[in-house]
């Protein structure tokens, strides 16, 4: 057991920050002469995670660091407290986002090749507005098209630590209809125990 003040400070910081915090953030809280070791911070975070395991909220690590969030299975009860309904996203937007996530860095033209149809500027703008994608560079071909990739915010939003957390791409073979359903069900099972 580490000493209490350090743990309380880290705990309070997580609650007060309003955004995920990294280990560097926690260390920077303290004056230079009294900064804790990284390993100590890690231990505190592990203890906190265990202490909250049975509570209504949980400590998780996402791309930008550690954050407290509500447990997924309680969300149905909490919906009524939120003034705004959670947005739904169009298939066109999700497909574009998925292609960028799995194939980054990628140009708009390449996305269009995969989807077989043009990608509206509106979708690209929305993805920018949500801060889910960013321009990584420009390809050195005529027109210097932008190369898109996903951002930390994208991972944070989808509760992921890094891109490896994305569901693996499934290779679709013949007569995919039934297979498709099977895969979905399996996916669901894989995900649920986590919550």
């Amino acid at each position, binding site marked *: 057991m580490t000493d209490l003040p350090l743990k309380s400070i880290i705990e309070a910081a997580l*609650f*007060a920050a*309003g955004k995920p915090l990294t280990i560097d953030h926690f260390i920077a809280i303290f004056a230079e002469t009294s900064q804790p070791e990284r390993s100590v911070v890690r231990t505190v975070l592990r203890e906190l995670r265990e202490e909250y395991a049975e509570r209504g*909220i949980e400590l998780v690590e996402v791309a930008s660091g550690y*954050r*407290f*969030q*509500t447990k*997924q299975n309680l*969300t149905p009860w*909490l919906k009524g407290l*939120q003034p705004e309904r*959670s*947005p739904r*996203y169009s*298939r*066109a937007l*999700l*497909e574009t*986002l*998925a*292609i960028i*996530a*799995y194939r980054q860095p990628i140009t708009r033209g390449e996305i269009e090749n*995969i*989807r*077989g*149809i*043009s990608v509206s500027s509106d979708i690209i703008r929305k993805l920018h507005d949500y801060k889910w994608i960013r321009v990584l560079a420009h390809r050195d071909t005529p027109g210097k098209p932008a190369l898109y990739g996903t951002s930390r915010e994208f991972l*944070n*939003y*989808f*509760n*992921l630590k890094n891109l490896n957390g*994305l*569901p693996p*791409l*499934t*290779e*679709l*073979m*013949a*007569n*995919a*209809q039934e297979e*498709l359903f099977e*895969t*979905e069900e399996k*996916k*669901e099972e894989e*995900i649920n125990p986590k*919550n």
Partner: protein
Amino acid sequence: MNSNSSTISPPLNPHRWGGSTPSQREGARGRVPSVIVQGTELETLPTDLYIPPDALQVFLEGFEGPLDLLLYLIQHQNLDILNIPIAEVTQQYLKYVDIMQEMDLDLAAEYLAIAAMLMEIKSRLLLPTANESKDSEDPRAKLVQQLREYAQYKQAAQDLDNLPRLERDILPVSVEQHEIPKEIILPQITWSALLEAMRDVMERANLFTSHHIMSEPLSVRERMSFILERLTESKTINFIDCFTLEEGRGGVVVTLLALLELTKESLVQIVQPKPYEMIQVISS
């Protein structure tokens, strides 16, 4: 596909399917939309078209492009994606494209491009190849490759949508802090960035319908804000007091226009309680 499969001719009234509101669509559920085939209205839909019995337009608009449509045709008939019966699929695909055109749906050029590709493949398959052994590459290969890749990402999009995510499945937590004096640090925004943003918005807004974007001079809008602000301080202002004579004729006109605009938008009312009394501006 059997030889007597009907051709779909344009519905007598193409607007029958068009412009329905969501609630109307809801109501149409379960009813079979009429399809006119060779002059006769069908009671039931041609089975080879796989049109579900609810709103056809919604259904057709639901495709995310030609590959999505092709994939649907193949998967819904349990056809082998690796060995597509091109003649059959092409015929069905063209029927859908025809219907979309006849219904005046916004048909992206890409649909026609894929139609041309399908026909080309079909004709190449029909042609007897002299040197079959040498040039044996299946003309379908590229299409199959494209379809498989698209199917992969279509699935990936669904998987992504199923991931637990903020707002829908997880909520961020926040607690009140003991009054840390909240210091607001302003972002550094340049003047040109702001103007450029506005120009973009306007170019876009022009694409959206006929927003009567902004013709009145800015000073009027500013004066509107000014009057509203004064009305938050006192519920009523004398009409006369809205004007600053020192501003001269131009200023008076601006104020008058602002008052009229505010009245038009029902933000203020201009009233005269009794004859010969002062005219007053009150917030509505």
